[in-house]
């Protein structure tokens, strides 16, 4: 028997980005997402311009460049930017390309310097990016102005709780406006006490043959995968909250694009981890000097916080241990970027953080627990990469196009599962209880679609309609 389905007509050329985005818009209200989103090369090219070329992108933490002249080399999209503290203590984000021939002027991942010199002809820039000279200046360039020939800065640079972001889009709204409701949740993690956080060393970097959006999708609040993919972590005692109990909590669409998820005890008196499992003497320093009583109470009941700031900055706080036989789980905090490296490749940049007022022993404990679980060699994270590789394989497949193959993101939609929207959540955004829910990912892809299709200079709404 042969049947024909008009939807299944193949085209000789692959789908364009516009075709994939139209399918995304058509499918999202039903919880369907075209698989091609995770592998289509035309989509990827559009992302570099429409998403990474415009959005606020996370670059690093201020504690990485404490002294004047300290710099780190980071990326916006696929392009290198020097993030440097200048002589006046300001932070500059400079496109790593000499104004003479476009050559890379910073060739180290990090360091301390008073200037950057191009290896090609010697054009030299200070830490503000100003051109300060070139060899035999009078003969070569006498009469030409140095002004206007400096390194190109990012259009806007700003920090939030020491987290440095930049955007290439001069028309982008301010960082705080862009973060929107997400600031309430960033405060709740990074502002738990008056000391704030610092990073523990440079980031670990590794490459996965997967699409960058798999990381953003997963950290927007994919808790359901723990029961299968990460079942081993319970077998070895790495994580103290049983799977079913861990599914209790909230999914929050903080504002368009930014999503997160809390595993949370139903009441304050519940036994089990509080404040993400941080030690009691540290938790005693958590206060309302920088956050509200509501935020402190949410943090107190929280066991896991996982979230993604659109597009590619993720945060995870939870109790873990690298060796259950010797050490009980303790709070860890990892921040990471899903650095795009092509439609089928992502470079993970993974930092571990500590509260600045932790004792050296607590810092070592949280670092070891984090490294042994949420790193490329860690018991928790090493399994995540396996499925993502095949998501991207499906995403670039001819079959996915010919069969009009879409992915199911229906969990928590009306009539699907037990999750229900709640109206007594103290924080901003749209909240659901329990975590059997994928609205957090639909929020990611809905904003993604609007960003991808926004005209130059135009910005999608950064607030949900009332």
């Amino acid at each position, binding site marked *: 028997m042969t049947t024909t389905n008009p939807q299944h007509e193949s085209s000789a050329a692959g789908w364009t980005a516009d075709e994939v985005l139209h399918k995304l818009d058509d499918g999202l209200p039903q919880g369907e997402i075209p698989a091609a989103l995770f592998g289509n090369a035309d989509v990827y090219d559009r992302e570099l311009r429409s998403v990474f070329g415009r959005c606020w992108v996370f670059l690093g933490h201020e504690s990485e460049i404490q002294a004047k002249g300290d710099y780190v080399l980071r990326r916006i999209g696929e392009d290198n930017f020097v993030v440097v503290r200048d002589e006046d203590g300001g932070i500059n984000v400079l496109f790593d390309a000499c104004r003479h021939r476009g050559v890379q002027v910073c*060739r*180290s*991942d*990090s*360091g301390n310097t008073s200037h950057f010199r191009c290896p090609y002809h010697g054009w030299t820039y200070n830490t503000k990016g100003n051109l300060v000279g070139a060899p035999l200046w009078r003969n070569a360039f006498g009469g030409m102005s140095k002004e206007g020939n400096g390194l190109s800065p990012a259009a806007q640079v700003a920090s939030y709780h020491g987290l440095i972001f930049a955007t290439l889009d001069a028309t982008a709204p301010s960082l705080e406006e862009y973060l929107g409701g997400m600031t309430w949740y960033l405060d709740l993690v990074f502002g738990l006490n008056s000391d704030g956080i610092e990073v*523990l*060393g*440079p980031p*670990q*970097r*590794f*490459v*996965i*043959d*997967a699409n960058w959006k798999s990381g953003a999708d997963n950290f927007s609040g994919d808790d359901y995968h723990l029961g*299968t*993919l*990460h*079942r*081993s*972590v319970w*077998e*070895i005692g*790495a994580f103290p909250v049983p799977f079913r109990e861990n599914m209790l909590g909230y999914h929050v669409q903080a504002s368009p694009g930014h999503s997160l998820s809390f595993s949370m005890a139903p009441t304050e008196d519940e036994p089990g981890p509080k404040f993400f499992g941080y030690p009691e003497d540290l938790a005693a320093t958590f206060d309302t000097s920088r956050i509200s009583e509501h935020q402190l109470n949410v943090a107190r009941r929280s066991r896991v916080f996982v979230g993604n700031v659109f597009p590619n900055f993720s945060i995870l706080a939870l109790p873990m241990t*690298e*060796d*259950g*036989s*010797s050490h009980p789980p303790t709070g860890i905090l990892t921040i990471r970027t899903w650095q795009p490296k092509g439609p089928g490749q992502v*470079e993970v940049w993974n930092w571990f953080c500590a509260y600045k007022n932790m004792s050296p022993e607590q810092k070592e404990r949280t670092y*070891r627990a984090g*490294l*042994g679980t949420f*790193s*490329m*060699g860690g*018991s928790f*994270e*090493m*399994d995540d*990469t*396996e*499925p993502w*590789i095949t998501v991207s394989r499906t995403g670039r497949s001819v079959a996915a196009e010919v069969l009009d193959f879409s992915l199911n993101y229906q969990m928590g939609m009306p009539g699907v599962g037990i999750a229900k929207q709640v109206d007594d959540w103290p924080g901003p955004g749209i909240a659901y209880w329990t975590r059997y829910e994928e609205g957090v990912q639909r929020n990611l892809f809905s904003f993604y679609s609007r960003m991808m299709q926004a005209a130059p200079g135009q910005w999608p709404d950064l607030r949900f309609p009332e």
Partner: protein
Amino acid sequence: MTLTKTRVPVGSALHNEVVEWLYTEAELLDDGHEAQWHQEMVSRDIVYRVPLRQTVERARGKGFAEGTYHLDETYGSLGSRVLRNQTPYAWAEDPPSRIRHFVTNVRVAEADEDAVAVRSNLLIMRTRQEQTQPQIFAGERQDLLRREEGVLRLFRRTVLLDLTVIGTHNLAMFF
């Protein structure tokens, strides 16, 4: 750790014993006998580290950032990894990779505390599923082996990888 003092010649009894030990270790790891390696060849007070490396200017050294690692393991945490791989849910290594350790340039010196200091070059070729291009790790291992009840056991290992950005999706294997 330096090897300036009392390096023993290639072919000497001690050198042969160390090479034999390294080959046995590589065989156990390549054959998937991680538990046996852990139990019989690793000291209970092992410090097993793969430091994080960055690209830095020559004046700043080789770029190994102090106190930061890809792996920083104890006997207990290595045991957790071995145990994890034995569960039916260790997707990162099930189906298992094909892993081959190539150990060369073995330099041996007597060290303090009845220990032997060993530097070797390590090349690991790893293939997953139907891959034909291997994932490759090249680097140097700096080991201290100690005689415990007559048997050599590994009690310090530092793996200095040549990579700054690790070109593989996980470190589910042992160096």
